[in-house]
């Protein structure tokens, strides 16, 4: 089966995942179309971050299937390099490599993993850092950057692999309120350029603004989903209502 | 049991592996004596070093500057010189000045090599213990002591019933490190002819020319000894975590 852009770029079917006794994902299904921006919201411990990590094959699933551009992610024969070229991920704790400068962080993976030409990669890295508004910060080490700046380097680092999909795992949760905005602006620009994005977030205002579709998860289940307008105004499930009343 | 011992005699006759301490009663007793002396030496040193630690930590909290200085000097000396040098210093240096007593025809110093080993090694480990206990006591907030005193404890009671038990739990991991190290260091007593395990093994292989067998035995016995100690200490550490404050 070959994948065509009109099919879902990510398709999650009946996924179940547990850590020992603890079931984190019960039976989760969702589809993401190309160019779509998806936000996953829900109380902490509801399995949102686990779901993102499963898409990237950072953790294996127990049952069900996840396909990215038609490729089964949890196929043992899968070429993980191919998957990770397609799927970029940005973490809550940035996870920049502290012994490398901002520029080197962006350049490392294309050179080491994709074996691309160094001069070319460097040129692109400068462009990417400019794109996330970090011109002039190229020689700085992560330890010398603010949280928001580090997170934008992390976004540039992922973009350097030319992914088709970007996963954002609570990328603003560890940031100061003032620096949250600069990261969100970067993500919105990406979304406007047509990048397929999946965000796990607690920023409801942002989700409402950029998302094409919102999923609400609780205790490993997708409780409710819909476009932002209907989701926020006409929530039906009592759990969603309760959650929204606490947040908004 | 006899047949077990005889098996080793057969092993020797057939293969040449001479585990002489199994089938020769004399060597067996010698070996066991050495083993017990190692245990005895370790336990004695542990006990004395802990006492030195507690007393030293208490003296370090003294109001007199000179007392604190002396304790500090003691810690610095024993922390920063090799234990072998300390052992030689005590045995050859101070040993020369201790009086001897008549032991029926010949003169014997009051403190023998075993005594000097205990003194030297206890002071060595004690120096670390003072610092360990001191840091543990300092980790208990002043308000806890005040609370104890408000409940009618006097200063000594508060120290014994509240502060020390808390401090002890805090510094147990560090204490364990030190005690394990101490047991390993007791082997140095060999250098001043204390007839502990290592020294006895040496005697046995000199008499029976079975160096590899004795060496293996020695190694395994020490591994087991230290291994059991490390294991027991870690179990203890886990048991001693502060109740009602744990996970």
């Amino acid at each position: 089966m070959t994948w065509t852009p009109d099919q879902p770029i990510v398709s999650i079917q009946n996924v179940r995942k547990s850590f020992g006794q603890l079931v984190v994902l019960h039976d989760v299904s969702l589809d993401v179309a190309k160019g779509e921006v998806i936000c996953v919201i829900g109380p902490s411990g509801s399995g949102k971050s686990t779901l993102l990590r499963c898409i990237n094959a950072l953790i294996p699933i127990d049952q069900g299937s996840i396909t990215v551009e038609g490729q089964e992610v949890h196929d043992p024969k899968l070429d993980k390099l191919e998957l990770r070229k397609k799927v970029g991920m940005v973490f809550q704790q940035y996870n920049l490599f502290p012994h490398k400068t901002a520029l080197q962080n962006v350049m490392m993976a294309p050179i080491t993993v994709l074996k691309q030409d160094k001069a070319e990669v460097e040129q692109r890295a400068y462009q990417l850092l400019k794109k996330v508004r970090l011109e002039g910060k190229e020689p700085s080490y992560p330890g010398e950057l603010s949280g928001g700046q580090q997170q934008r380097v992390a976004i540039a680092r992922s973009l350097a692999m030319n992914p088709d999909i970007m996963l954002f795992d609570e990328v603003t949760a560890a940031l100061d309120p003032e620096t949250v905005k600069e990261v969100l602006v970067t993500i919105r620009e990406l979304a406007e350029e047509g990048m397929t994005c999946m965000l796990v977030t607690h920023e409801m205002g942002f989700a409402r603004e950029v998302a094409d579709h919102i999923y609400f998860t609780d205790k490993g289940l997708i409780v409710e989903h819909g476009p932002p307008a209907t989701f926020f105004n006409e929530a039906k499930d009592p759990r969603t209502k309760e959650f929204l009343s606490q947040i908004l | 049991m006899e047949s077990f011992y005889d098996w080793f005699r057969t092993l020797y006759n057939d293969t040449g592996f001479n585990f002489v301490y199994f089938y020769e009663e004399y060597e067996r007793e010698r070996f066991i004596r050495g083993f017990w002396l190692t245990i005895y030496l370790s336990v004695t040193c542990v006990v004395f070093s802990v006492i030195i630690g507690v007393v030293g930590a208490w003296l370090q909290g003294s109001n007199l500057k000179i007392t604190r200085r002396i304790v500090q000097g003691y810690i610095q000396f024993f922390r920063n010189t090799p234990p072998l040098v300390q052992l030689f210093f005590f045995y050859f240096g101070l040993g020369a000045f201790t009086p001897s007593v008549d032991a029926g025809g010949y003169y014997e110093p009051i403190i023998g090599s075993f005594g000097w080993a205990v003194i030297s090694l206890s002071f060595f480990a004690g120096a670390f213990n003072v610092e360990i206990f001191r840091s543990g006591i300092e980790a208990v907030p002043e308000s806890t002591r005040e609370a104890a005193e408000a409940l009618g404890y006097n200063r000594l009671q508060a120290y014994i019933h509240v502060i020390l038990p808390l401090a002890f739990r805090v510094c147990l991991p560090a204490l364990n490190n030190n005690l394990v190290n101490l047991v390993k260091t007791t082997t140095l007593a060999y250098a001043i002819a204390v007839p502990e395990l290592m020294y006895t093994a040496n005697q046995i292989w000199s008499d029976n020319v079975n160096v590899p067998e004795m060496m293996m035995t020695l190694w395994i016995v020490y591994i087991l000894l230290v291994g059991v100690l490390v294991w027991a200490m870690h179990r203890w550490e886990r048991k001693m975590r502060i109740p009602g404050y744990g996970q």
Partner: protein
Amino acid sequence: MIGLFRTPRPELRAIPGVTGPAQTDLPVLLPAAQLIGRKARQDRTNGFRLELKAWHGLFLFLLFLFFTGVAAAQVDNTLDKGVLATLWRWIPLIVGQGFVLNLIISFTAMALGTAAGVMLGLGQISLLPQVRGSSWFTTQLFRNSPWLVLLFCVMLLLPFEITIGDVIIRIPDWTKATIGFSLPIMANISELVRGAVQSIPSGQWEAAESLAFTRRQTLWQIILPQCVKRMIPPWMNWYAILTMATPICSIMGVQESVNLTQQALVSEDSRPELLAPFYLFLLVIFFCYCYPIARWTVSLERKFVVKL
């Protein structure tokens, strides 16, 4: 990757507020309590810290002068019988041969031990259970043995010469001692490597994996470069500990500085007044060598703490 990457073996269960972050803000213990537990666990891989200060050396030197003075007052101070004159005669042997041998043993044992220890340490984080298990076992075996026992094993079990064809290669005592010293160093460096790798936050592994780094690439380009910095101070501390331990092999007749000092004293008719000056002189020599290392270790540690 989470499943594959081994989480640190908990040497002791965390006690909130004592060995881990507190879960309540009750003032049961001061924050120092946490530090003590953390430091104790650090000592298990880093070894006891040598905390040499300049005044230690000064004190030793003054003590040396004092005993030399006392000794000089006791005996007739004719030219070749004087304490300093006697010491002066022996210095070329004690320092030039003996102490130099201590240094050679310490360098070689450290080099051998580090090379073997790094491999063993990487073995301890291997994905293959057999490799991991046997590396762990070897490490524990040599880490928990007293140094003197290991030294005895190697000194007595290794042959004093080996014959390859017609060539007879003699193995001198000090070479065997070097091998004996390198074994505990190996085991401790192995623990150091394992501890350092596991102290790197697991987010680093995740980030590298999501960028499609292989395990080997992650280890060599992301994890180990970050470990090296953390490992240098404790590594140097181990070197200082090793150097101070090298005199142990004098017990087995290796002719290093302590052994030669003993011999020198005997050939000076074991004059009691020489004892203290000679041994104090040795202590001063060892101090002069170890003190800069200890200082450097401390300053590097501070520097890295600030950066990381």
